[in-house]
């Protein structure tokens, strides 16, 4: 039998439901606050604590999953759904045509098939013309995109949309299943890679997450591709240090 959950676990889980995703530092702080609120001794073993919750969530096909952000390279925790049933399809956050705009053949294709892991708002607006469920006007499409950004499924930067960390964490099995020919794994961390730098040697073409690039090439004066040894022609970003407490 899985261990029963106390109020601290339930409080943590409820906050994860409300927030969807939080970074590692916030998760540690959250656990501390939950312990304080319920007068429990401070628990520093976040991952073990989450394992106890996950054991109880498993029968409901839910999970608090740990993953890395393509953007800042930090650890995140997200509460994800793993069930794909007639019941979960009744989920009411988005209408059918709004989901069609987001999913395969539309926005997700544009993002996954691109070399940069991004899609321009122009391209997304264009593909909205061919929706099969129900047409979306330009204004409506923009409104849906805004909501997808607000709900943390998409990320927007200067008119370019990418999949958010929350989205990749929950949708990774879907991405691996439906884009097995297009999607690559990061040469360094071996996770699905969308936003990245790519080796320009046409016979190589490996992809590396930007934060993985930063960590891998840190301090090297002559950056070379870890696979083919060709010169790595991209700008090497600084390593993003997680904020002080850890």
């Amino acid at each position: 039998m899985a261990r029963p959950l106390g109020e601290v676990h339930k409080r943590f889980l409820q906050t994860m439901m409300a927030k969807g995703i939080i970074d590692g530092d916030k998760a540690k702080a959250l656990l501390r606050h939950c312990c304080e609120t319920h007068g429990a001794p401070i628990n520093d073993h976040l991952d073990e604590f989450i394992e106890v919750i996950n054991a109880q969530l498993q029968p409901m096909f839910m999970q608090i999953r740990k993953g890395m952000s393509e953007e800042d390279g930090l650890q995140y925790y997200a509460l994800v759904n793993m069930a794909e049933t007639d019941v979960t399809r009744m989920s009411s956050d988005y209408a059918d045509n709004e989901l069609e705009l987001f999913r395969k053949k539309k926005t997700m294709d544009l993002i996954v098939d691109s070399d940069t892991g991004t899609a321009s708002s122009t391209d997304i607006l264009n593909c909205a013309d061919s929706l099969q469920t129900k047409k979306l006007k330009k204004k409506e499409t923009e409104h849906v995109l805004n909501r997808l950004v607000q709900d943390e499924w998409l990320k927007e930067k200067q008119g370019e949309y990418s999949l958010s960390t929350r989205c990749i964490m929950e949708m990774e099995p879907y991405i691996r299943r439906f884009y097995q020919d297009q999607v690559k794994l990061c040469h360094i961390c071996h996770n699905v890679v969308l936003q990245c730098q790519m080796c320009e040697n046409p016979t190589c073409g490996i992809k590396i997450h930007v934060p993985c690039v930063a960590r891998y090439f840190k301090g090297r004066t002559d950056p070379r591709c870890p696979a083919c040894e060709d010169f790595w022609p991209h700008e090497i970003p600084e390593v993003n240090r997680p904020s002080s407490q850890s």
Partner: protein
Amino acid sequence: GKEKASQLHAEGSSFDPSAFAENLLSFMGLNRLEDEGEMSGGYLPQDAWQKVGNRAQCCFRTAPTFHYMLGSFLAEPPPPRQRIA
């Protein structure tokens, strides 16, 4: 008989919705403009209602809601993979 008795016992402060609105506007951080009538003037900061919501949250035992993307739509079977015979 009975109703009257309870009304007699119902001394204590009365509640004036106008005063309530005025006090709530102050709580929201209303920037009152000078030389204006009491109700017309001033503008509210952008987070005015968020502020009331945050403070009022402790009155509600609302269950958090669960939102997800995976599973919210029917995933069609993957297209047949093209293979070179």
